[in-house]
């Protein structure tokens, strides 16, 4: 199946999750919420992998890279949640979303040698405009 369908479904799920988290307004410190999120994620993925009998073995170099990416994403998310706790979401969310829209594309161009066509630039520009209009 084309990657776009998986991405759209993922986008809908996470968008809905974020909406309901905000709606329910947990009286829980953001990083505690993130801890629960990761614990739930770990248990779920562990059970799924066991059921599907997918091997957990990974060579040492790849394991180090995976742990590094886990360190980066969890630390990044933690900083994001902390920044929200310090100021209003209307300041943090657009800046964060524009950043994680544009920076991976730039990194992909530099390190993965992905082609950045005019259509991709136009798509990125529309994404940034979407974020700006939805958050002003």
């Amino acid at each position, binding site marked *: 199946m084309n990657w776009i369908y998986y991405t759209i479904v993922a986008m809908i799920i996470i968008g809905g999750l974020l909406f309901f988290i905000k709606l329910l307004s947990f009286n829980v410190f953001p990083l*505690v919420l993130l801890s629960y999120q990761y614990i739930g994620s770990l248990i779920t993925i562990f059970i799924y992998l066991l059921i599907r009998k997918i091997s957990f073995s990974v060579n040492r170099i790849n394991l180090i890279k995976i*742990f590094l990416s886990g360190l980066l994403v969890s630390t*990044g998310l933690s900083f994001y949640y902390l920044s929200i706790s310090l100021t209003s979401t209307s300041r943090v969310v657009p800046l964060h979303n524009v950043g994680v829209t544009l920076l991976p594309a730039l990194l992909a161009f530099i390190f993965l040698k992905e082609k950045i066509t005019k259509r991709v630039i136009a798509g990125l520009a529309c994404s940034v405009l979407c974020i700006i209009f939805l958050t002003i």
Partner: protein
Amino acid sequence: MPWLVYVLIAVVLMSFSSLIVKKLMKNVNQLIILFYQCLIAVPLVIIYSYFSSGALITINNYPLILLGVIYVTAIALYYVALSNGPLSKVSPVFNLKMIVTAVLGLIILIEPLTIQLILGLVFGMLGIYLLGGERE
């Protein structure tokens, strides 16, 4: 402005994490990557939570673990998409999750339909079309 520094750090860390994951996907199952990321993330976020606020997870809030089930499903689908599509396109489309939040706000919270919201949704849809519609 510490919040600004935190957001920028978050953007950089999360973007580099996506880059590492994309590179790893050539050799490692995406769900295994997700598993080990969660494995390192759980203790890290608990430590960050404790040192930033003294807050720790408690048994009373265990239903919050369900958030992790939903979250990991979305991220797993995102990683499947990332294994099949370019980072420069998958990541921006995934980050348009704000569209879902905005639509849910309209439907469930009966938020007003403003010109900004319409423009945001239009640009979001256009962004998805431009990024997702191009043949690789």
